[in-house]
């Protein structure tokens, strides 16, 4: 007899209580049906609040469905054999203060493995995760990529037949992301199956099967190629020529025929609703899962010109005077150097991207330029104000969206915005206007009275962006603004960011998405505390050309990082 499917869902529906007493229940899953045969990898994709995590929790036996049948490893989910299911919750479920070893041994024992009795399994996990040598480090002090690897090791320590991984590659740089994917494949025993949720379609394309969820419904189920195929005949590209990449994209996104657009190398890539995009020289291009995703979820809405940017005054500052300047910035913690001698400058109206692996020093650089951290060496200026002598004035001139959500989770959206407005000196009618504008531009009206902590991730990020631009600053700092959010919200974010920059605001941004990096005017690649390359996306690609043919920006990123690591090792 053939092995039963590892997962079988039939007509699964789940409702949650509404956010307020009187509000109707929220339909998280609506008649979800699918089957996962043994030994396959299922990619679970979908926009924010699509029901992905609820679906995962049902598979892990942590949430009971209201209706429908769920079978896990051939048995009804009520009789789930937890020793055969390895579940990695979103965020990892690690104890930050406990060491790598303590975390791993706790989960090993909970899953029935005594580390002393199975030293070879534990050794194998350390080897595959690359955590050997870090056994005694508290897990909270690992870089994002290593933390995710540890979390995965903890989830699958007992070599389960079903691995459930909720967002294992969120907030992780391209190098680590590849390693994490590799790790999952290596850890999965023969015949084990994997469910992998992600908002990154690149990851999803490597899966055997894809399940696209949207508003609790299955919008696509099948191989990744089939999803890409949905955009077949509607995907075009053309050479960028002399146009600035982001201007080309921005112009396309506001066209009614266009579903989505982006940069790929020296070409601009567009998915249309019907006809060929306006303008000459368009060639039919091969669609990818991202395109299929955009087509599947297309509601026909055309992105209106950014109302968020419209409030920014048009600033025509002298482009020769940098809006942001880092001059030999360094930061040391005892004997550890987090940032070593970093210099760059950003002109008004320019978008400057900081790229680099987790823990390379991007956020530290950011925090120094925001005046949140005093540099150990060098200096920084923001809007012409020196951070060492005029920190308060410099801070007034900037808007900052931190990597971690830093507003008050138990306050409402309205109260948070009022607070931020007050903190930036906006009061009375000016504050009310600014809040109204931001709320309207970012579609937060429906959430005005909701607690910020209860918002879906993408909405929470919108709120954080709104809070950073309430006072229309001449300098904007965005630290991984799109981490964990789906491609549709990413597109919307960059639409705003581009429009704000077009008004003369200088933008400094970090990202792990290379298609976002393509949208920046200039980039700096930081690795192991040092700047290893600086230039336009095209220049960075050219730097890596000798090593990897005609590389994409992601390949260039990986090549440049690896070559520096090899140099450092040698």
């Amino acid at each position, binding site marked *: 007899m053939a092995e039963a499917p590892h997962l079988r869902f039939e007509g699964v529906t789940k409702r949650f209580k509404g956010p307020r007493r009187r509000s109707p229940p929220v339909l998280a899953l609506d008649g979800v049906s699918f089957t996962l045969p043994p030994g396959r990898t299922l990619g679970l994709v979908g926009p924010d609040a699509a029901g992905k995590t609820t679906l995962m929790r049902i598979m892990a036996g942590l949430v009971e469905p209201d209706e429908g049948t769920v079978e896990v490893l051939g048995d009804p989910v009520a009789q789930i054999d937890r020793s055969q299911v390895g579940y990695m919750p979103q965020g*990892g*479920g690690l104890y930050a203060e406990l060491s790598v070893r303590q975390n791993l041994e706790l989960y090993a024992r909970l*899953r029935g493995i005594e580390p002393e009795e199975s030293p070879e399994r534990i050794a194998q996990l350390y080897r595959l995760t690359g955590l050997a040598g870090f056994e005694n480090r508290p897990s909270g002090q690992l870089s994002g990529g290593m933390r995710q690897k540890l979390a995965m090791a903890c989830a699958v320590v007992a070599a389960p037949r079903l691995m459930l991984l909720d967002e294992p590659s969120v907030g992780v740089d391209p190098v680590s992301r590849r390693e994490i994917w590799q790790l999952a494949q290596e850890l999965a025993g023969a015949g084990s199956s994997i469910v992998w949720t992600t908002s990154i379609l690149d990851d999803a394309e490597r899966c055997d099967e894809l399940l696209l969820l949207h508003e609790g419904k299955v919008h696509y189920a099948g191989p990744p190629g089939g999803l890409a195929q949905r955009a077949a005949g509607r995907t075009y590209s053309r050479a960028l020529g002399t146009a600035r990449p982001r201007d080309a994209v921005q112009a396309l996104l506001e066209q009614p025929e266009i579903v989505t657009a982006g940069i790929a190398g020296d070409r601009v890539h567009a998915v249309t609703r019907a006809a060929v995009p306006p303008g000459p020289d368009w060639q039919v291009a091969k669609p990818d899962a991202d395109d299929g995703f955009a087509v599947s979820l297309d509601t026909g809405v055309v992105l209106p010109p950014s109302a968020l940017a419209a409030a920014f005054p048009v600033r025509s500052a002298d482009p020769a005077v940098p809006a942001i300047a880092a001059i030999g910035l360094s930061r040391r913690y005892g004997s550890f150097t987090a940032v070593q001698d970093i210099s760059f400058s950003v002109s008004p109206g320019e978008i400057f991207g900081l790229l680099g692996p987790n823990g390379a020093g991007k956020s530290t650089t950011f925090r120094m330029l925001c005046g949140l951290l005093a540099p150990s060496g060098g200096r920084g200026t923001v809007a012409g104000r020196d951070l060492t002598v005029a920190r308060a004035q410099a801070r007034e001139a900037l808007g900052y969206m931190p990597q971690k959500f830093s507003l008050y989770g138990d306050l409402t959206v309205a109260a948070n915005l009022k607070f931020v407005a007050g903190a930036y000196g906006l009061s009375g009618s000016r504050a009310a206007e600014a809040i109204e504008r931001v709320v309207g531009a970012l579609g937060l009206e429906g959430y005005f009275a909701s607690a910020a902590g209860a918002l879906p991730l993408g909405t929470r990020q919108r709120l954080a962006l709104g809070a950073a631009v309430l006072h229309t600053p001449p300098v904007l700092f965005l630290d991984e603004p799109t981490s964990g959010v789906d491609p549709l919200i990413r597109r919307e974010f960059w639409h705003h960011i581009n429009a704000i920059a077009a008004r003369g605001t200088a933008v400094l941004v970090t990202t792990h998405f290379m298609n976002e990096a393509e949208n920046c005017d200039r980039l700096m690649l930081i690795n192991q505390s040092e700047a290893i390359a600086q230039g336009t996306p095209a220049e960075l690609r050219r730097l890596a050309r000798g090593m990897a043919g005609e590389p994409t920006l992601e390949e260039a990123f990986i090549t440049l990082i690896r070559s520096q690591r090899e140099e450092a090792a040698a």
Partner: protein
Amino acid sequence: MSQRDPLAARRARAIRAKEWAQIWLDPSTFGLVVLMPLILMFLFGSAVTLDVHGTRTGVVDMDHTRASRELVNNLARNSYFAVREGQSVAELEAGLKSGELRGIVVIPDGFEHGLVRLEPLDIQLITDGSQVNTATFLTGHLRGALKEWVEAEARELDIPVTPVLKILPRYTYNPGLESRYMLVPGAIGIVMAMIGSLLTALIMAREYERGTMEGLLATPISIPTLVISKLLPYYALGLASTAICVAVAVWGYGLPFRGSILALFMIASAFLAAVLGQGLLISAGTKNQFVSTQFALLSGFLPSLLLSGFLFEIDSMPRAIQWLTYIVPARYLIPSLQSVFLVGDVWKLFLPNIAILLLFGLFFFLRVTKAIRRRIA
């Protein structure tokens, strides 16, 4: 899952090891377990006292006889009073008004005359009615002092004292009638109630807040195993705090310890089962450390302080409030603790109390396992 889990012991040990590691890494646990008992014991043992010493009292002697002078001197020697003599009530009244004096004792003209004739004695006491407690204490103390003095005087003069007036209190187990003897065992109960519920109030909420609960629940561990394993380290810490309190009581405040360690251990364990369970339930219910702490203080500390009979006698409370005291675990602890210190092992008192406390513990434990279930909202 009804079948027995052969790896349950291993899983339980893993959770216990994790809890100990977290306790070890968290400096606030030390503060809660060691410093807090010391501070609270110091406060209740030294700073809070229900005894009145050196109450500033004015005395007006209108009799000017040997007997009246003797009474004035007697009062002056009594440590309860700090006597200031005046020639008239009018002279001392200002002191009473300003709060400098707590009361004025007036010995009437003809006091000695009446005394030898066995006529009823009228000694006036003027007190500050706005300080009701002090006034009551003063009245009581004066009455006692007078009685003692009258008896001594009567013996000296060989006058029989009317037996109906004779009240001879014998302050059993607390011969010095020091409130400390009653307060310190009660304070131990309060400290245990507070630490017990605070210790566990945080631990479940912390798991939920940090998202680690999801990871734990997805493993094969059973909920009762999880709850008990999480509880045990905190039970040990609770016992350690109790030991610190008892040590302070005996060596710091010189309380007698007339019962046995075994009885103390059993009483303390039963009580900890109740309060740790209470904290755990709060923690699992709120899933939020801040709310949980507030709630633990409100529902653990305050009722223990007010409704356990520690500060206020339960018998003198309104009937409705008296009923309420039956659901305060400390009510069943404090009398037993007082006995263990001051009387000895009174198993007839201990056993029912222990049984009730264990029932509390069981109730909370069942509620906690029910509240957790395998659900993530």
